């Protein structure tokens, strides 16, 4: 199992409420995934500043702040539980190098000019509370509740997976050709941090996007290249897409209104969204990519 949820706002009306909307959806998907939960929110896009979502695990934040400020000048840090959002004008490559070589206990959950990612083991309602999802505003967001099947219940094994700037992916299902694909993508330069199958799908998406393919075209070619069962929700800085494999065993429902598009594994996740009773509600058809934005 596993539960996946996502909202893409078509207008500004609900931007302040995005976190609240997403947290109700995640809470309602606990029955599909009680082991861990996570979410990615796209907010306050900046032209020059990069945001790094870091999990500092059991490191002391004050010490970490002191140490990292010596390496990255003018870094701004904001702590939410065991996650830290680090803001800097330094290029991502440099920042990743600094963190990886000086802070082995810190994992980079994701980075970009808009995305912020939080994920942790535990029940969705506890994870949502811990990271104060209710207080988030934003333009679009994606979330996941995990029932672990093929790899351990850890932060690294939690979704969303982010393998490129402002990119993320959540998955309900399992892939059968991920080991092979991981080897192929590793040869081409993609770096993976876990043994998880979904991270390979995220890596596949990032690899194709970096070759200037659109999100829609990437997921369409994924229908051939990714073998297994899946409903994916993928996010980019300005876009949002959903795809189910051609067998379509893994569920998904979309509700579209003039203000937003919501997607979830089950309707009960979105039963409380504003105006949902007047929404156009449909199941994404097997093997067809649905995308919004770009």
């Amino acid at each position, binding site marked *: 199992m596993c539960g996946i949820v996502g909202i893409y706002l078509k207008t500004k009306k609900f931007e302040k409420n995005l976190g609240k909307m997403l947290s109700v959806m995640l809470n309602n998907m606990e029955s599909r995934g009680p082991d861990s939960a996570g979410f990615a929110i796209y907010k306050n896009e900046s032209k020059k500043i990069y945001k790094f979502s870091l999990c500092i695990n059991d490191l002391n934040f004050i010490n970490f702040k002191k140490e990292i400020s010596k390496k990255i000048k003018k870094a701004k840090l904001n702590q939410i539980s065991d996650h830290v959002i680090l803001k800097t004008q330094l290029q991502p490559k440099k920042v990743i190098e600094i963190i990886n070589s000086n802070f082995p206990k810190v994992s980079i959950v994701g980075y970009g000019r808009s995305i912020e990612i939080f994920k942790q083991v535990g029940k969705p309602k506890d994870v949502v509370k811990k990271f104060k999802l209710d207080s988030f505003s934003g333009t679009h967001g994606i979330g996941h509740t995990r029932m672990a099947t093929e790899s351990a219940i850890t932060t690294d094994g939690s979704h969303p997976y982010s393998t490129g700037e402002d990119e993320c992916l959540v998955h309900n299902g399992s892939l059968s050709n991920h080991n092979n694909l991981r080897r192929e993508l590793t040869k081409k330069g993609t770096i993976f941090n876990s043994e998880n199958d979904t991270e390979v799908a995220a890596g596949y998406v990032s690899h194709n996007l970096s070759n200037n393919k659109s999100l829609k075209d990437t997921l369409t070619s994924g229908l051939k290249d990714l073998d297994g069962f899946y409903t994916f929700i993928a996010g980019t800085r300005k876009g949002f897409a959903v795809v189910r494999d051609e067998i*379509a065993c893994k*569920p998904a*429902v979309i509700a579209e209104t003039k203000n937003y598009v919501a997607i979830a594994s089950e309707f*009960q996740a*979105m*039963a*409380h969204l504003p105006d949902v009773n007047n929404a156009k*509600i449909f*199941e994404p058809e097997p093997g067809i990519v649905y995308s919004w934005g770009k």
Partner: protein
Amino acid sequence: MKLDLKKKKLREINNTLQNLDIKKNEREFTIINPEGSHALCAGLNQEMKILIKGHVGYYCAGMNQKAHVTIDGNVGTGVAENMMSGIVHVKGNASQSAGATAHGGLLIIDGDASSRCGISMKGIDIVVKGSVGHMSAFMAQAGTMIVCGDAGEALGDSLYETDIFVKGSVKSLGSDCIEKKIEKKHIDKISILLKKSEIKNVRPESFKRYGSARKLYNFNIDNVSSY
């Protein structure tokens, strides 16, 4: 009687309906605020009329006997699965495996049904006003399926003795499913079911009939690739 899922728990409501006091004459219920709940109205076994106002989750009216359940909304996976008798009427769309393994009764879907509609059906009649998705009537054994719209890929794969009638196009037929000649008795059967489903303006003569070629009933080495 009005039953509100915001005020009462799902289990409480199902319990009330499953253990109806037959001495009382209360046989009509309206359920409000279903909010996508699973297994709503599952296991009913007496004559009663239920109207559910809103969208429901999985296995709605599963194992139904005798009851008439109307859903004024969409349903999730496996509506009326394993139904024995009675009527289940979905006014919106149905997710996958609608009417799965059901032995009897009538399932009416006003919208579309997604994949595997009527999988392994064993005697139920299913009438879909819209279209059905891929692998519908997979391994269907008995009963009737009427589709007023189109059918997806691999319709009637490995089917036994279910009669399938489709008005629109069929993307592809599954293994051992073939188009068959439509006779008067089939047209009569379609007319009766369309009438029961309150579908007007659809000519019973406009359907095509599909059924089993009966080549996979017994193992034959020449058919090994089709199994």
